[in-house]
Structures are given as structure tokens and as C-alpha cells.
């Protein structure tokens, strides 16, 4: 059921709300623009990729990251809203972690930015907690029967990021080259990091 009285184009609704709030001095245009610019330009999966590449190349960092994700991620300068307490889940040949928010769309903004469409979609939110192996296969990730799946539902203020496995054949790669292999999807757990 939709509310019949409320047929307003979303772009017009946004403009209506913004103009009313700005006129009354309740919202500042510059603050609004700054929020938008931050998540368009500075905060995104490139941050998480740096964290993963560091963990792949620095065993001490990897250990700190798994023990206290929030602090280790802050070492690289990443913190902020939706990152009060970040737990990093390590994927191994035996265990594959995948993250969801079934109640809304909670996501670790400081390391991954804002969530993509597939993560926010009801299909993912409803099904990954019921048939994860089937859903991962739909995404193109076929896991062996010997790999245990752990699904993590983000229902508190704890935010989760997956540390994917380092792809084979990347022994000679630099940290920067490795970061380029780490995708948003691998850090949520619906894909693996792959060598070029």
C-alpha cells in the first residue's frame, strides 16, 4: 500500500524539504554540500582496500586489525560516522564470512563508503540469512562444500568488514598494486579478491 496523497517526485520532495529547512536556518547549504562531497569523493571502498592491502603485507598490522579493527583502521586515518566499533572478519580456506543488515542497511562507512544497490535491496537482505550458498552462487561465487559459511547480520552499532584472502600469484606485488585488487564486494564477502 502506498500513500495515495503523497505522489511527489523524489527530486521535488528533496528540493521542497531542503528549501524549507534552509529558509528556517535549520539546515545549512554548505554543510549539506559537504556531506554529499565527502561520500562522493573521499569515503569509499578505496579506504578499505588500503586496510586489506596493509594486512596482506604486514603481519603485525593484520594481527592488530583482527584484534581491534577500529583502532587498526584509525591508524590509516579512517574513522567517522558508522564506524564507532568495527570488527574485521578474516576469510580463510575453511571459513567464508559474508555481511548483511536485514533490518536496514547498516554498513561500515569509513572503510566502504555508502552501500551499493544490491546490498540495500530486499532480495539480498531477505535471502542471504536463509540460503547464503545459493545467493553467493547467484553473485558468481561458487564455494566448495568444504568451506563453512558464516553470515553476519549487523544488528547493533558494530560494523563488519571482511578481510578477503590474498590471491595466489601476488607474492611480488606492492601494497599499492594489491589494494587495486580489493573490491567493495570482496570486503562484504560476496566475492573474492582475484589476481589480475
Amino acid at each position, binding site marked *: *500500500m*502506498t*500513500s495515495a*496523497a*503523497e505522489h511527489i*517526485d*523524489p*527530486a*521535488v*520532495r*528533496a*528540493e521542497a*524539504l531542503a*528549501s*524549507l*529547512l534552509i529558509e*528556517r536556518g*535549520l*539546515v545549512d547549504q554548505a554543510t*549539506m554540500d559537504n*556531506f*554529499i562531497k565527502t*561520500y*562522493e569523493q573521499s569515503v*569509499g571502498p578505496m579506504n578499505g582496500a588500503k586496510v586489506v592491502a596493509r594486512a596482506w603485507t604486514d603481519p603485525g598490522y593484520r594481527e592488530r586489525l583482527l584484534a581491534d579493527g577500529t583502532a587498526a583502521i584509525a591508524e590509516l586515518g579512517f574513522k567517522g*560516522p558508522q564506524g*564507532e*566499533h568495527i570488527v574485521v572478519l578474516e576469510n580463510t580456506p575453511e571459513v567464508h564470512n559474508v555481511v548483511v543488515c*536485514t*533490518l*536496514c542497511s547498516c554498513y561500515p562507512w569509513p572503510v566502504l563508503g*555508502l552501500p*551499493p*544497490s*544490491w546490498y540495500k*535491496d*530486499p*532480495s*539480498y*537482505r*531477505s535471502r542471504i*540469512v*536463509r*540460503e*547464503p550458498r*545459493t*545467493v553467493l552462487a547467484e*553473485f558468481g561465487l561458487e564455494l566448495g562444500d568444504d568451506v*563453512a*559459511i*558464516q*553470515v553476519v*547480520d549487523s*544488528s*547493533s*552499532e*558494530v560494523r563488519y568488514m571482511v578481510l578477503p584472502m590474498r590471491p595466489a600469484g601476488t607474492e611480488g606485488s606492492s601494497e599499492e598494486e594489491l589494494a587495486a585488487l580489493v573490491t567493495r*564486494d570482496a570486503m562484504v564477502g*560476496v*566475492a573474492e579478491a582475484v589476481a589480475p
Partner: protein
Amino acid sequence: MGGKQGFGHVLPLTAEPAFAEPWEGKAFALGLLSIRAAGANLHAFRHALERVPPGDYLADYYDRWLRASQILLADSGILSAEQVAARAARLSGSEVPEPDPPEPHKPDMPSGGPGNLRTLDTPPAFAVGDRVRTADLRTAGHTKLPGYVRRRTGTVTAIRPAEIFPDTAAHFEGENPQHCYAVEFDSRELWGPDAEPFRLSIDLFEPYLEKVT
């Protein structure tokens, strides 16, 4: 939404910008800024999202944010739905009169400081390894105990930082901080004997749990 059926194939893993259209960026920023303008909090915003009528809720993600912002602002007497509708009509070229703003009545829940993490004097009731059963909750309000894990037995695998209790904070009934636990369930406990084998871990607040002996 956990476990609900009928939503079909997942969407493709495509690359996409943070905001597909400029208005989505505005909707995002307005969501965060409306929480402040309404004197509300993140939990009340999530509850407002849940109060968007189902058809509208499912129609579009950032339109849902705009509608939730409107709900918060109307609840606090900052902006009425009629004001927004009139402004939208005027922006679309109709010369409709704009109603006066309502009388503000912002919530005044005391804050225990920035963020959602809190320190509790009382020790956690459960320890790692404890078997716990989730409540048979039938609240009409906001909660972080999803339907699909109610009345189920699992194992505490970690103690998380204590947090503001969303179930009370969303209704401005106090921060009421609670211990929080990572609880792991076997898929067969959730979905029956024919379920795909996997483990599900979810963070649950102490009031949702009782110890199984």
C-alpha cells in the same frame, strides 16, 4: 526482512557512484541533518524508516530517506507534511498557499555523550560459550531483534561494547544502555532440518536473551 520470501534474484554487483542522481545526495544529507533539526537520534530515524508505508518503503531507497526525514520533522513539530506538499506543488508550478509551520515540540531525551557506545557498571549477564534463547518479542515499536531470530537458541561467541538501547532511544524513552553480545545460531535452528548448512552471527542486546541451562 531476514528470511522473507518472494524478492527474487539478487541485483548484479555493478560499479555505481555513491549517488545515482543529484537528489539522492540531497536525500542522504537531509536524512542526517533532519535528525539534528528534529532533535531526534539515529534510532528514531531508523524507526521512522520502518514507519514509511510498505509500498513506499519498497519503491525507492533514498525516497524512503526523505519520507523518514519528513516523519521525524513532523513528529517534532518542525515541518508538517502539508508544508512539504505545498512547497513541492509550488516548485512544480502550482500557486498553492503555504501553510504556517506547526508548533515545535522536540523530544528532550538526556544524552549520555556523543556516539552510541557506553560503559556500564554492571557486569554482563552472559559469558562467551553460554547458550541463550531469544525473547518472544511482540513489540509494536522499534527493536533490533529481527523476527527470524526470535524464540531461537544460540551460543554467545563474543561480548560487544555496551550501547544505547535502540528499543527505548528510538521512542525518546532514555538511552538505557545495555550489554550486547554476538550470538551464533545454526541454520537448522533458524530454518529447520532441510536448511543449507551455515552459521549465522548477530549482535543482540541483553534484554532480548535468557540463559538456557
